[in-house]
């Protein structure tokens, strides 16, 4: 938190913004050749550089010693008037967002170079990433909602950028209408909270002490925010749009939406609800001092979030069981994963926040990775149905094994990152005791249920006989029709799933410390 606007802390955001501007400028200047390579290269380089800067801010990597934010404002105090703040949990989310953008940018380098819309795709990818980075730096509700909006508008356009595909356009239209509605709900909720507490700063909201005795006004505001931000996070019953959008969008965009951009909703939930759910200490003390009514609906909100979490994971899993198309199955599975993540904020302890954050981290590799494989397989001439994937295990064993790792991780099978994050999350529920144990049992039963639809896909891929054949005519990309970029992105995701599944401590340690700090300041 600073009063003047320093440039240094914003370096990652500025790098991403500059990348977007350069792409649009080159496009306007009439670059006609090597468009995919140039624009994709810029996008990948910008996200990679921003990622290095963010991890340096966190204290990792060779730049760590050179770069400290604003002389150590990371994990410093955040004031009641701050608009933005760079805390370690926010930086970890920034790193996660940048990873998802980097994976998608790398994979998209392997598009066919005659595909139209390269500048729009990579430019919007970067502006969407910019909005996500700002989300993770928000210290004020209005700032948060504006940042979400930056991402939102960019992603509406991304979904429909091909323009000629009616399914993509339909998806973009749905996405836009639902997104606009959710924005309206969010801002209405924010105005109610402002009425109740006299501020939209998260530190003030976290204390839950307003100037006037309007607790129900605040409760209504929080309810609207559950709906408004819940749309972004695809919580049931605000999930209807997600499957059509993920299904209709170009698959690389789906990877970005499911693996990256929807997680701004989770960080938004962290920011908005850490206060009422977790920060109860000192509330009545502060009120005794200035004669106000403390906001004590924390347990109610926690229970609501817990119910929404269980409903979300159950509905997502049950509907995923019924799907015959690969993309729709992955989309429903993505909804159920949002339910697991929401457990973290319903419990509201540092271990639970850490577990949910690790789940988001793993989700980049397993869900974005899975969508990238779907795009690769579509490029090999395989149809959209799960049954169309029959025999892939024999024809493309390496690709099939990578995909299997992603699905096993989504199912939470041991020695994958997905298992570790679920284990930490459910352990934190048992550790919190009380009714939270029910969340652990519900989550575990849902994991058991989800095994069936993932296993069914594995059965089709590895056991069922399929047609012989390689890449279709017209696909001349290297690495058997995948292209280097996509092969690298998929390989990176698969390796990360196993590496962090076997040894999660290097990421889990910092995440746990960041979550503890997050709960100590509420931002």
């Amino acid at each position, binding site marked *: 938190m600073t009063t003047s606007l320093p440039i240094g802390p914003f370096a990652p955001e500025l790098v991403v913004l500059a990348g977007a501007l350069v792409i649009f400028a080159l496009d306007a200047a009439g670059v006609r050749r090597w468009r995919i390579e140039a624009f994709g290269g810029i996008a990948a380089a910008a996200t990679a550089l921003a990622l290095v800067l963010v991890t340096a801010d966190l204290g990792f990597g060779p730049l760590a010693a050179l770069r400290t934010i604003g002389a150590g404002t990371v994990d410093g105090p955040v004031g009641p008037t701050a608009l933005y703040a760079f805390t370690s949990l926010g930086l970890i989310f920034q790193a996660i967002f940048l990873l998802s953008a980097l994976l998608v940018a790398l994979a998209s380098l392997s598009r066919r170079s005659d595909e139209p819309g390269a500048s729009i795709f990579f430019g919007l990818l970067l502006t969407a990433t910019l909005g996500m980075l700002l989300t993770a730096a928000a210290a004020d509700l209005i700032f948060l909602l504006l940042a979400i909006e930056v991402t939102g508008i960019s992603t509406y356009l991304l979904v429909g950028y091909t323009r000629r595909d009616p399914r993509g356009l339909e998806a973009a239209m749905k996405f836009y209408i639902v997104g606009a509605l959710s924005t309206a709900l969010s801002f209405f909720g924010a105005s109610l909270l402002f009425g109740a507490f006299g501020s939209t700063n998260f530190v003030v909201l976290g204390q839950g002490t307003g100037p006037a005795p309007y607790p129900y006004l605040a409760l209504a505001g929080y309810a609207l925010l559950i709906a408004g931000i819940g749309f972004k996070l695809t919580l049931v019953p605000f999930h209807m749009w997600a499957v059509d959008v993920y299904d209709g969008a170009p698959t690389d965009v789906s990877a970005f939406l499911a693996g990256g951009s929807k997680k701004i909703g989770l960080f938004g939930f962290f920011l908005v609800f850490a206060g009422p759910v977790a920060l109860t200490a000192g509330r009545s003390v502060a009120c005794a001092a200035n004669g106000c009514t403390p906001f004590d609906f924390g347990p109610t909100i926690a229970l609501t979030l817990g119910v929404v979490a269980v409903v979300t994971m159950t509905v997502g899993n049950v509907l995923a069981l019924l799907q015959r198309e690969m993309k729709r199955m992955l989309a429903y599975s993505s909804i159920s994963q949002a339910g697991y993540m929401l457990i973290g904020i319903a419990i509201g302890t*540092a271990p639970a926040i850490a577990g949910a954050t690790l789940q988001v981290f793993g989700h980049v590799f397993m869900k974005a990775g899975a969508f990238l494989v779907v795009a690769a397989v579509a490029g090999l001439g395989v149809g959209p149905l799960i049954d169309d994937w029959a025999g892939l295990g024999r024809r493309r064993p390496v690709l099939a094994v990578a995909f299997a790792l992603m699905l096993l991780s989504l199912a939470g099978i041991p020695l994958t990152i997905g298992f570790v994050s679920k284990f930490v999350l459910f*352990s934190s529920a048992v550790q919190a005791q009380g009714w939270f144990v029910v969340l652990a049992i519900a989550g575990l*039963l849902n994991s058991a249920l989800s095994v069936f639809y993932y296993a069914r896909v594995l059965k089709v891929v590895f056991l069922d006989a399929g047609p012989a054949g390689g890449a279709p005519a017209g696909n001349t990309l290297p690495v058997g029709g995948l292209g280097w970029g996509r092969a690298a992105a998929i390989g990176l995701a698969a390796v990360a799933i196993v590496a962090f599944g076997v040894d999660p401590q290097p990421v889990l340690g910092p995440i746990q410390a960041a979550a503890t700090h997050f709960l100590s300041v509420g931002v």
Partner: protein
Amino acid sequence: MLPVLSLLLATLAAGTGVTFVAGRWARWAALGTSIAFLAEVAYLLANFPTTPPFAFTERDPWISLGWLTINYTVGIDGLALVLVLLTAILQLATVVYTWAETKEPGAWFGLVLLTCLGCVGVFVALDILLFFLFWEAVLVPMFFLIGFWGGPRRRYAALKFFVYTHVASIVMLVGLLAIAFYSGAPSFDYVDVVGSAAGLGASMQVALFVALLFGFGVKFPIVPFHTWLPDAHVEAPTGGSVLLAGLLLKLGGYGLIRWAVVVLPTGFAHATPLVYVIAFLSIVWGSVLSLAQRDLKRLVAYSSINHMGIVLLAIAVGSQLGLVAAVLLMFAHGIVSGLLFMVAGSVHHATGSRDIASIGGLTPRTPVLATMTMVGSLASLGLPALISFPAEFAALLATWERVQYWVLIPLVILVVTAGFYIWMMQRILFGPPRGLPDRTEDVPWWEGAGMGLLVALTVLFGILPALLVNLIVNSPVALPPFP
């Protein structure tokens, strides 16, 4: 010190990996792995110290978050060593018995090895997460063994097996996590958990014990959660049945002793009446159901419920003698039920049927198979000088010491079951040949070798049970002094 247990796990893991990709050499890879495994177990036996509580312990940090401390901790005591030995024996016997498997041999032998790897991991893991990891790792290969190589209703049976045991293991996991967190254990290490669980209140201990009793009991299986077992056994291929009855059921007994009885002694003491009731129910119901069977395999499957009921009874007694008897009985049942499932498989191969009522007079046609059938059946009914006798005798003696005349229930049931086995032998082995194909071949050499190994051990440990008992009693952590 040499990390023997990690080497053991690594041997099995590497062997599994090689077997999966070895194609037509898979069975040789599996055989080599089994022999190496047995050699390592022999090393463990030869160097097993008598110092409590655990030998060959290894401990490496894994996850450390303050509220959650997980180590890679392995170690072995007599209780675990006996069951690891059983795993090594049954793995070798299964690999040899199914030597001629032709349907995807690489996957078959690989999954057999993977099942055994999971079991060994369960027996040596001394950390909640590690234990759970191996516990779940057993489930997946068994699901495929049943679902891919099984009989006509294999998909249904595999699914039922998976759902039952998976739901149970979820309850088990939540129970173990609750023990660790509610008692404030400094880590997930077994020794830490045991130490801090003593501080839990009586009602909490009872609640957690009952949760674990359910979680482990489904694997046992205890009545009324046993219905997955007959389906799984009847549909499973012979090798799958051997591992299922010989090893997987033992996981339940091992887990109950290691993670429930020892960790929650107060809860166990208060819940003992419930355990008795379930044990008697399982003994009686398993036996009654086995009397009603005409299918040889179903007969063996239901008698497994009966035998595991006696194991549960011996655990419920809770004395030193009772626990030794329980472990001995698990070992005995592992060998004998494995042998009997092989017999059922070979009878099916030789005659094309498993229907006790419709086949008869095997002895003159297939003398080797008939001998194996005799030894297995006599061992199962508890004939002295065969392996089950000392175990069952000790179990009944321990029961008498604690609850006196209640021992009549298992005793009467034993006599009835014995009569039934004798009737079964009389039907299928003796008398004029009935229901046999024109040319009934005796068992091929690999089936004979697999069964022969188990027959030899049935006799050896029947005469010298002290070999095992001395191992078991040298494990003070497994067998706490009881009031």
